[in-house]
């Protein structure tokens, strides 16, 4: 079968990248809750236990503080751990090991000790899982120095960025949106399941991508928001507005040039983010344009982000609060109305 016809879910793309790197490099191993025989709650370690066994695909106790700390120690000692934090919402029970050790040891050691670990963690809601299993927290991780942060929106990027993350000598936080995973029971955005080459490849960390080209407005988004933005771009096109849609793919390091160059062309900026609005990704994207040259803007920047509220359980309340294509269309029309 030709490669171009091989569609994979994000979950399978992640597992494939990990298995290929595990074959190439004995130092690579996986640990976390339910990553073994179960194959990961979100399917991203499926098949690994069968191929590599319990030594390299380690189910852990529910002890995030210990196993995140262990990842730091193992990585500093020459291993390349991939650690799953099942829901990003759980970071509160182990953040010390992540942001004070994993993220800072390279710096504190003056570059003498590296921590080549990957943390893969699920983000996002939309399926009524309540406010401790639905957050994105992109800005929280991206805010703290010393960690690279990637957020793939489709299976091609998911595989290439996982490979790049495993090979990176710095810690990488790999944030995958549950709604893109391709797990039957979660409901999946169809656009995330795309053709994926069988061979290994990398998608460079730190490079954004333009996923739809236009002239009138720039929509910047990440993860699930990219798919909402693409739908919005199609709706806008019918109304005579063409949108440049940028998939950030990486939050740290942020591809500020890519964003700036698009806004320079369109003069208008709309940022779509499923993370909380204030003090986060959307503000940083806007700042990265206006602090460089505010004169390129022909309208005030717009945000479609999660309101500053805990995520509600009830379906109608949660859906009301989430970004969607209609909200993005309205924001773009506000931006292009003058």
């Amino acid at each position, binding site marked *: 079968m030709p490669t171009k016809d091989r569609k994979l879910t994000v979950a399978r793309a992640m597992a494939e990248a990990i298995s290929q790197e595990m074959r190439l490099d004995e130092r690579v191993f996986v640990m976390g809750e339910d990553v073994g025989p179960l194959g990961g709650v979100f399917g991203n370690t499926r098949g690994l236990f069968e191929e590599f066994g319990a030594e390299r695909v380690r189910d852990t106790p529910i002890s995030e503080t210990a196993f995140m700390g262990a990842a730091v120690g193992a*990585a500093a000692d020459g291993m390349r751990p991939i650690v799953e934090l099942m829901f990003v919402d759980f970071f509160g029970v182990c953040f*010390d090991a992540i942001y004070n050790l994993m993220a800072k040891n390279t710096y504190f050691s003056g570059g003498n000790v590296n921590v080549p670990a990957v943390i893969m963690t699920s983000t996002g809601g939309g399926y009524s899982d309540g406010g401790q299993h639905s957050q994105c927290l992109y800005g929280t991780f991206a805010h703290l120095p*010393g960690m690279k942060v990637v957020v793939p929106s489709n299976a091609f990027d998911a595989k290439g960025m996982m490979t790049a993350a495993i090979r990176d000598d710095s810690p990488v936080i790999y944030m995958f949106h549950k709604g893109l995973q391709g797990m039957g029971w979660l409901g999946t955005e169809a656009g995330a399941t795309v053709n994926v080459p069988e061979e290994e490849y990398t998608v460079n960390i730190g490079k954004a991508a333009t996923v739809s080209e236009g002239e009138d407005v720039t929509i910047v988004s990440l993860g699930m928001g990219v798919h909402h933005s693409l739908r919005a771009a199609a709706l806008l096109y019918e109304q005579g507005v063409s949108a440049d849609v940028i998939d950030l793919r990486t939050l740290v390091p942020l591809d500020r040039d890519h964003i700036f160059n698009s806004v320079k062309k369109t003069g208008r900026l709309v940022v779509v983010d499923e993370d909380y609005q204030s003090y986060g990704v959307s503000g940083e994207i806007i700042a990265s344009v206006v602090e460089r040259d505010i004169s390129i803007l022909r309208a005030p920047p717009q945000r479609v982000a999660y309101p500053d509220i805990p995520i509600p359980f009830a379906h109608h309340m949660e859906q009301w609060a989430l970004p969607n294509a209609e909200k993005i269309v309205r924001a773009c029309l506000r931006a292009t109305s003058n």
Partner: protein
Amino acid sequence: MNPTPEQKQWMYRHMLVSRLFEETIEKIYLEGKTPVFNMANGPIPGEMHLSNGQEPCAVGVCAHLNKEDVVTATHRPHHQAIAKGVDLKRMAAEIFGKETGLSGGRGGHMHLFDADVNFSCSGIVGQGLGPAVGAALSRKMQNKAGVAVSFFGEGAANQGAFHESLNLAAVWKLPVIFVIEDNAWGISVAKETATAVDRNAVRAAAYDMPGVYVPGNDPDAIFVAAGEAISRARAGEGPSLLDIETYRLAGHFMGDAEAYRPEGEKEDLLRKDPILVYEKALLASGDLSESDNSDLKEHAKREVDEAIQFARESQFASPASALDHVFA
């Protein structure tokens, strides 16, 4: 196994260096901080946590360790670093924040990293346990020699990290030795008001590992207990917990008025200064001659003086080099 005379002298020598180093640091720390104490002033700014009194824990354990063994230490790390063989000159320079320091001044005294001897420490209570478990896991998975030792205080035994890490190390049967330096005080809070058990050694039972209490702040007794735990780890028999009674002869940090101590405690502890006690014992047993003793003291002084001189004479890195080494 009891230490040989050579091992006793090794322990005594490293305690002398550690003590002399800290006494020197203590004096320099106060430069620029009198008459008004301002932590930001002087050649060594910031917090300073001295380990004097706790030296036996470091030497009794590290006497069994090689370069490849991993140590994770605490915010009070000097005695452990010296016993593990961290380069004293570069360590001193780091404490001064100089370019020649272990990390070029980015870490400071709570963040000493010497990859050559697999030593690191960190600033928050209970942080080193997980990394020690991970280092031990790495050795086991790579089938490489070496054990991991995590030093921490009795206060850390009330952290979740302690319980999670002991459990994980036991479940995976890893070559880790968890070493509690019980100095009886968590800053100003006495252990008996913060800890539900008299001795933390009993907590080892919850994780199905040996837990040994070592009273007396005595290098030889610590050496014996550590030797058994480390042999066990090297033999692939899994982790152990050592619970060592020790004393903090100084405050939590320099500037601590220590008003929380009961009257007479400090004087009592100073009378029990473990280095003086050990010196007397070694001289009495003949494991140390008077002339060896003065040689060791002279050697320690020279080593410390050279390290301090190196630190003082070293340059500061350019301020903008603060931007380097954020990523690998």
